[in-house]
């Protein structure tokens, strides 16, 4: 279902005109109200009057995560603090957190973009949404919450974790829509199996999973084990939280709410814009945000854009599901390795469950890549050579794609830590 056909199916020409106009007001507001952006534009030699539309976007400076951090807490506000009604931040695990300050209008935009997201997966006011994203400063919980409220669904704000309780609620309240990270969805499926719960007796029919990259194979696993249609959603605290882009019923790329958040793809090394279809770093400009608007934010997420028409009727541009992160990218023996590539291969092998871990180490100046895969009943054989065959099969498939040798190690079930939030797939032990 299309929540807001007025914007989501806007003919291209009209959409571009709207974006041109919004970009103009954004640049104007940023130049007048935020010292940080004024200084950057001055340094780049651009004035608001030079920006007539999207075509002029590449002339504007980028904004990086480090710059947002250095503006902590309020330096990047474009309105008076009294206009701000809610504040979220990134986790701050790697430094000062990034602040996203919302005006009432911003919360309205957020609810709108999440209403579009949930509607695209078929959620309506008749649904019971079990929201297992974390509530709090993290944007996942409240973002989904506002969207679910906007479409009139019933929200169960259970937040993340407490798996036993999640299963109870699912059964007792007849949850129809589940929202959480994809790794937690798999964890719930496993817990269900252990409890002897069958999805046939549950009402689950759709799930909205995001906040970490996942793969098509992981989707197959989640859909089969939870008995629902799994939709990928994308967003980030720096921009608004979840609601930036979402999949429709075709599950073929994520429609970007581009009337609100304008996407570009650039070469991560040079910053030069790349043509549609070419893989690179996603850059987003918030077109209507009031509290903490951002110009050309470097997301560090790797994807590509697709402007072809979608049979769902939306005219908005689609981004491919995330292909990795510029900062997650491992460089092993000089080769760029994205964890998502490894996952795709591992999960493509019959019988392998999505419990794996990648360990990078350096011995005698040489990088080594080990992939641990959990044993399960489907993979297990009483004959050693069958098990060794499984290891070498995974190794050869990894080699075919990555072009570097990996060592695959079968480990006992449950030896890889389960996550209730974002899964920790990579352990880099190298001390460089």
């Amino acid at each position, binding site marked *: 279902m299309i929540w807001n056909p007025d914007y989501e199916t806007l003919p291209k020409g009209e959409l571009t005109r709207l974006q041109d106009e919004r970009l103009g007001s954004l640049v104007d507001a940023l130049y007048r109200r935020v010292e940080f952006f004024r200084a950057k534009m001055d340094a780049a030699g651009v004035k608001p009057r030079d920006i007539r539309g999207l075509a002029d976007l590449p002339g504007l400076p980028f904004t990086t995560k480090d710059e947002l951090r250095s503006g902590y807490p309020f330096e990047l506000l474009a309105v008076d603090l009294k206009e701000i009604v809610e504040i979220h931040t990134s986790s701050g695990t790697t430094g000062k957190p990034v602040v996203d300050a919302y005006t009432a209008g911003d919360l309205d935009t957020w609810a709108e973009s999440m209403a579009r997201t949930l509607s695209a997966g078929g959620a309506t006011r008749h649904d019971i949404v079990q929201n297992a994203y974390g509530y709090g400063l993290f944007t996942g919980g409240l973002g989904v919450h506002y969207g679910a409220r906007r479409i009139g669904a019933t929200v169960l704000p259970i937040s993340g974790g407490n798996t036993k309780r999640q299963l109870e609620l699912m059964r007792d309240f007849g949850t129809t829509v589940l929202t959480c990270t994809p790794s937690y969805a798999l964890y719930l499926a496993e817990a269900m199996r252990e409890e002897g719960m069958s999805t046939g007796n549950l009402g689950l029919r759709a799930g909205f999973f995001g906040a970490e990259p996942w793969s098509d194979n992981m989707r197959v696993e989640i859909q089969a084990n939870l008995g629902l249609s799994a939709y990928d959603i994308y967003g980030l605290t720096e921009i608004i939280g979840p609601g930036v882009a979402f999949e429709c019923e075709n599950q073929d790329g994520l429609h970007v709410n581009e009337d609100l958040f304008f996407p570009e793809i650039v070469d991560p090394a040079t910053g030069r814009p790349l043509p549609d279809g070419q893989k690179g770093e996603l850059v987003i400009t918030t077109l209507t945000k009031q509290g903490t608007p951002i110009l050309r934010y470097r997301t560090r997420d790797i994807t590509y854009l697709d402007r072809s028409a979608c049979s769902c009727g939306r005219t908005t541009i689609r981004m491919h599901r995330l292909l990795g992160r510029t900062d997650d990218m491992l460089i092993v023996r000089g080769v760029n390795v994205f964890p998502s590539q490894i996952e795709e291969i591992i999960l493509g092998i019959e019988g392998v469950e999505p419990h794996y871990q990648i360990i990078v180490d350096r011995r005698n100046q040489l990088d080594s890549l080990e992939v641990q895969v959990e044993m399960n009943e489907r993979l*297990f054989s009483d004959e050693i050579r069958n098990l060794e065959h499984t290891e070498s099969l995974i190794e050869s498939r990894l080699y075919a794609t990555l072009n570097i040798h990996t060592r695959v190690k079968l480990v006992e079930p449950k030896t890889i830590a389960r996550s209730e939030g974002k899964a920790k797939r990579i352990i880099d032990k190298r001390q460089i």
Partner: protein
Amino acid sequence: MIVKQVSIFLENSKGRLAEVTRVLAKERVDIRALSLADTSDFGVLRIIVNRPDRCLEVLKEHGFVARTTEVVAVEVEDRPGGMSRVLDALDEAGLNVEYMYAYVAKAGENAVVICKIDEREKALAVLEKKGIPTISAAGLEAL
């Protein structure tokens, strides 16, 4: 005759084998024969026990990956050439023994070996024709 073996996946790490035997001891599962095959990363423990179904259940409850496998229990004359006679018979029939290991108790004068053979029924027929006795689960239990 065909008997049920329990096979268990073990990581090559300290205490894993002891954990299996501890679990089985608590359930009073009696291990009658055992073989451990291993690589540098992992091992497969194969055991013949008095109650294979219960044994499997209890191992799974403790989070082990395990399964039962059908194997053949063959009586082997306890003298030079005894083993050779069995393997010759199987070899002649084109049957491949994946692995084998000895059973603890003897059947009278004969030793007992546990063999993993893909075509079990054919193997039984071949052995019977050669006059080589095999032994049932109940027979093993009685030794």
